[in-house]
């Protein structure tokens, strides 16, 4: 199962909502404002720091660059839109809008 999250973790609880339901082994893809959750050392970093223990967590490269995010939580994998397509091919997908 692939879960996409596109909301800032500081303003919106979508990522928490997603993590409550996602099962071990499910893949999480952060995109749009969702990529702020991949940032290290923030008040919300613990969400992804915990998530990577049960999930593979990706963040869209173009969204990270647009927001100037370079200091990421180590286990987060940077993904292109092409990688996003591959993930969709491999998993059924739910968007946590």
């Amino acid at each position, binding site marked *: 199962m692939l879960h996409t999250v596109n909301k800032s973790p500081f303003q919106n609880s979508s990522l928490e909502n997603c993590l409550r339901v996602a099962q071990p082994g499910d893949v999480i893809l952060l995109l749009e404002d969702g990529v702020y959750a991949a940032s290290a050392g923030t008040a919300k970093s613990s969400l992804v720091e915990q998530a990577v223990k049960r999930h593979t967590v990706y963040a869209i490269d173009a969204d990270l660059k647009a927001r100037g995010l370079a200091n990421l939580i180590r286990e987060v994998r940077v993904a292109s839109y092409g990688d996003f397509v591959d993930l969709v091919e491999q998993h059924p997908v*739910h968007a946590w*809008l």
Partner: protein
Amino acid sequence: MAATGKKVMVTVRKAPHGSIYVQESIEVMFIFATYDMQLSVVFLDDGVLALHPGQDTKGLGIKGFMASLGALVDWEVTRVYVDRQSLKDRNIPEDAIITIGRDEETDAPIRPQVLDSAEIAKMMATQHSIVSF
């Protein structure tokens, strides 16, 4: 109609009335129910607030969609689920949520079925597609 087609789920996660997503998700349910697919609907997170009893939108000058939700079963939208924890967090008793129809034989009221998040996750993983609001 016996649904034999693909498994399609509609998830409703937004609160009602502050935005139109719940209403337009119901329009999707009604249409999808007439197609050959195995449709299921899940209310979770703020979406469960759509099932809150006693909603009356008259004072806002808008029609609302309580009548539509109350007729889901009539429209063959029968696999309707709601997340237990989301109800609990919002202090909505499980037996207080609105009814979505009546049993054809016993006339007993039908409510969305309350599930744990693990059961919802399991259902999600078996879908062909999920439309989310």
